[in-house]
């Protein structure tokens, strides 16, 4: 296909709002206090995770209920390699990506041939397996987790304060947006769209359904693992409790809330999900119920999310 036929990466009408949002994001830590910056950093973490899951759920239409497992793979890879084996933080990222890819193939290759419901329940089981393994092995620190994970250093500058991690996550989020924008309009992205829309028709026009789904699943896994690496570095301590089924649900809620398959929608959803615990701080044990009702209400009344994809 000639290059001229490709639509631009960002439509002109979207360029100005996107740049304005980016500008706000860039200057935010200079105006906000530590608390707001901390919440904003969490929001950016969720932006990355939701964009990753959006590739799996939104683009390829595969319900993954164990997404936090890949996040855990990244966090534990960084944690174990830096604290036990003295690896440099940056070297752990490619290892984590490879590990997530491998885990994605192990779970995805056999199950992506099956109906989507089976995938949902298998990924749920997989998420639990990863959490149970993390709880019961010595190398992962058992139930109490790993502590003393090394902080990353870049050109002699050590990432220490919350602002540093804010910018690190912002960079990662922008990278994730860029990856999503590029794959969305790539040959692979169109294949995912057809597979989600009508599997049989997609097979009819020569798309290999299983490999298309597997690519989406692996790409989502890799993005989550990188987010996990940076998360481990920021927290310096990780435990199995950060990677529960509820974490997977929260990421899914972000994707569904904003609008499956649409990048600005997913970013909005991710930010809302990150703000949710802050807004509902007083709700205590009612928080999961409020989250659940929100999810159900969106599915019933606005099945395409708050900011839906017009492509259908």
């Amino acid at each position: 296909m000639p290059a001229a036929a490709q639509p631009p990466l960002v439509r002109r009408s979207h360029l100005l709002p996107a740049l304005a949002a980016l500008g706000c994001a860039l200057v935010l830590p200079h105006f906000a206090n530590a608390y707001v910056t901390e919440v904003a950093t969490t929001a950016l973490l969720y932006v990355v995770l939701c964009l990753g899951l959006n590739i799996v759920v939104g683009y390829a239409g595969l319900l993954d209920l164990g997404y936090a497992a890949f996040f855990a793979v990244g966090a534990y890879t960084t944690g174990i390699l830096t604290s036990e084996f003295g690896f440099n933080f940056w070297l752990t990222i490619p290892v984590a990506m490879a590990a997530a890819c491998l885990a994605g193939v192990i779970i995805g290759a056999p199950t992506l041939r099956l109906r989507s419901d089976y995938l949902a329940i298998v990924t749920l089981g997989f998420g639990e397996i990863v959490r149970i393994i993390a709880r019961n092995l010595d190398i992962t620190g058992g139930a109490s987790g790993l502590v003393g994970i090394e902080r990353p250093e870049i050109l002699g500058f050590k990432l220490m304060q919350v602002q540093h991690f804010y910018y690190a996550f912002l960079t990662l989020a922008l990278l994730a947006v860029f990856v999503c924008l590029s794959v969305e309009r790539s040959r692979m992205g169109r294949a995912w769209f057809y597979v989600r829309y009508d599997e049989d028709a997609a097979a009819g026009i020569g798309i290999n359904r299983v490999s298309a789904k597997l690519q989406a699943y692996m790409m989502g896994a890799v993005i989550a693992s990188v987010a996990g690496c940076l998360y481990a570095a920021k927290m310096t301590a990780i435990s199995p409790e950060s990677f529960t089924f509820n974490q997977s649900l929260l990421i899914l809620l972000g994707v569904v809330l904003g609008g499956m398959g649409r990048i600005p929608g997913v970013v909005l959803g991710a930010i809302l999900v990150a703000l949710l615990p802050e807004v509902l701080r007083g709700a205590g044990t009612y928080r999961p119920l409020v989250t659940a009702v929100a999810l159900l209400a969106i599915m019933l009344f606005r099945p395409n999310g708050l900011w839906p994809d017009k492509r259908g």
Partner: protein
Amino acid sequence: MTLDLVIQQLVNGLIVGSFYALIALGYSMVFGVIKLLNFAHGDIYMSGAFVGLIVFSFVGVWVGNGWAGVVCALLVSMLAVGLLGVVIERFAYRPMRNAPRLSILITALGASMVLNGTALALTGGRHFAFSTDLGFAGLDVSAVHITYTQIVLVAASILLMAGMQAFVSRTMYGKAMRAVSIDMGASRLMGIDVDRVIALTFFMGSALAAGGGVMAGAYYGSVHFFMGFIMGLKAFTAAVIGGIGSVPGAMLGGLLLGLLEAYGSSLPFVGSEWRDVFVFGALILFLVFKPTGLLGRSVVERV
């Protein structure tokens, strides 16, 4: 492992397995009719246990904490939670019947979370004691001890399952259920009230889950808002092992899963925490190598 231990584990496995079978049966029935994984099934089981506990603590004043109380709790809970299942179907699943698959799955997940979140909000996440005075009296067969409670619970499970099998294979409604599970559109053309059949299936499936929940509560002596999550997964695994959509398959799958767990957790160097890993491992292996399960027809669409 000594022979006694092997036999004791066999007994334990069969007892736990009969619970799993009961829950798996409801899963299978609902799946058979609307081809949807009812994620809320585990939470319906949990709701059943809580309703049972509430009823039990009320009727205990009149009929005591023995069998009479447990049976009252069982029956009331099955009825109430069966109706709850119908309500969930009406408000969460029916509006989505023609929606894309992904939306329905997420809705089911939402329904599950709403039940779970409600239980958490109402109970504050505490464990509640379900203290019966059924005691530990029982039979001793060589070195193996089986309590009367265990015997009665297994018998009750078998009775419920046999009743369900008879209902599905003998009655008109059972016939309608099987027809709807084969082809919903054609059934409607033949004059079957599909909505009513689906509602009935939800009622029965939910009532079975609630029965299992009350029995588990009475057996383990405690009820907790999170008990449904893991049970939902295990029941689904049992249904897959036996062949999802098949009534005898659900029972066989439940028993096999109970045995797998009992023997798995008595292996050396394997803590009870790893038990769940066996379960999910079995689930994945079955889906990969034999997705139709042991007794299932080829209802699994491979797409």
